[in-house]
């Protein structure tokens, strides 16, 4: 479960990214974060991963109180979270297999386990036949599939996706969303997006942000600003 309780984030120059935001996301829930650029979507995702700390309020992620001053389990927290970026962030000097495997290597899994799990993840995203291909030879859609495989592998039960279809054409974007659909109910998935069609067709929970505040929380909503 992810809980934001009266979370405010003010940056040093005075702009307020989040203003008294409260919400709860249950385990294995599928949530869209929508809103205009600068509304605070990315800030919420970065607070979950502890890249940004709130100015006030409390955040609990999977029983970790990340706002606790003595919080020292950042690494343990991050090992439960898979992140997908708009620009993929696939490592250009590693092939597909290695890119996905890095997610398990950093947590010290052994080689045989890594091999099995990477193959399973690549099967999930439809890249089984490209495990030894380098990123330069992959299309944008395939790169995002690699990033998804890297995010879902292992014990990562929270998937955060920041504009995962932002750099993709509509057809590829849908293909990517189908992968998220497959994960529905198995992981907590939070997707920050501008894609109206996708949000409307999924009919999942939608948190609408405007100027750092949640203005709507719809259980089976569409894209409405």
């Amino acid at each position: 479960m992810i809980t934001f309780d009266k979370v405010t984030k003010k940056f040093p120059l005075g702009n307020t990214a989040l203003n008294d935001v409260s919400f709860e996301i249950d385990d294995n829930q599928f949530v869209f974060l929508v809103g205009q650029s600068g509304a605070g979507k990315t800030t919420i995702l970065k607070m979950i991963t502890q890249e940004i700390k709130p100015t006030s309020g409390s955040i609990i992620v999977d029983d970790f109180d990340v706002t606790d001053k003595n919080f020292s389990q950042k690494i343990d927290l991050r090992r439960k979270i898979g992140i997908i970026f708009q620009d993929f962030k696939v490592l250009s000097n590693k092939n597909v297999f290695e890119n996905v495997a890095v997610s398990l290597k950093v947590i010290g899994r052994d080689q045989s386990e890594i091999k099995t799990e990477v193959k399973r993840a690549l099967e999930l995203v439809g890249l089984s036949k490209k495990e030894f291909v380098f990123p330069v030879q992959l299309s944008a859609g395939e790169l995002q599939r690699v990033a998804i495989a890297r995010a879902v592998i292992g014990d990562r039960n929270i998937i955060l996706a920041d504009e995962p279809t932002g750099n993709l054409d509509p057809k590829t974007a849908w293909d990517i969303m189908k992968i998220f659909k497959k994960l529905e109910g198995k992981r907590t998935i939070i997707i920050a997006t501008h894609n109206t069609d996708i949000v409307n067709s999924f009919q999942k929970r939608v948190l609408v942000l405007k100027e750092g505040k949640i203005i709507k929380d719809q259980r089976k909503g569409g894209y409405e600003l």
Partner: protein
Amino acid sequence: MKEIWTSIKRTPYQSLSAFLILFFTLFLTLILFVSLTFLYGTLNYLETKPQVTVYFQNKTEENQIFKVRDELMSSGKVLNIKYISKNDAFNIYKQLNKDNPLLLEMVSADILPPSLEIYAKKPIYLPEIAEYLKKQGDIDEVQYEKDIIDKLLVLTNTIRMSALIFFSYLILMSIVVLTTMILFKIALKESEIALLKLIGATDFYIRKPYILESLFLGITASTLSFGIFSFIVLYFNSFLQSYFNGITNLSVDIFNYQLTIWPLNYIFFTIVFVSISIFGTVIASVASYIATNKYLRV
């Protein structure tokens, strides 16, 4: 090893610069270290030579000489005293002039004075011992090598201080240059490091490849600098032998262990190699640690 080699190949100029600066530092350190060791060895050697020689008048009775010797021994400031009788002095004279019969004919034991060779426990006792001897009767001459030892002590201290300053500058310069080189390399992987941090990599996991590469460069540079230094020393071995002619042994104390540095030997070379390797790896590790720190704050 494969990853280290790949990293070096990807940024060959940065790696070469890092290697050269390490090599330069370690080579100069090696020269300073060995030179200082030899200076200390020479100082130790000179301190074992007779430091005060007192010549008695020819007429002086042996009993009188032994009385002076015993009083000095009981002072607690003297390590050892060697009595050279008239006959002993004549034997030494004969030995020194064995190739010159004319000189041997002109001298007999009677005209040579008896003497005491006194070894002080510390050089600072020398003036005191010399003053005491001058006040005794029947003394012909008191010679002591305080000046030489004082000059050597001053020289050693000056060299040690200069070496320390130069050495500190060298370390600082190497760490700064190495850190900059590694920073260049890491900057190319900034986004990769940020990603690794976000997926839960520990700082050590991220640092490991950079530290390993630096260790590799450190060990390679120290081995090469030691190899070249050893080659130079062995090449000039015959010159060194003539330079240290007559000195059979030079040694320094290291934690109560008497390390022989001359004649050159395997133990001395091994200790020098181990020291320079440790030094090289420590410099390289510190530099890579500082460099990686900058990118670990995600």
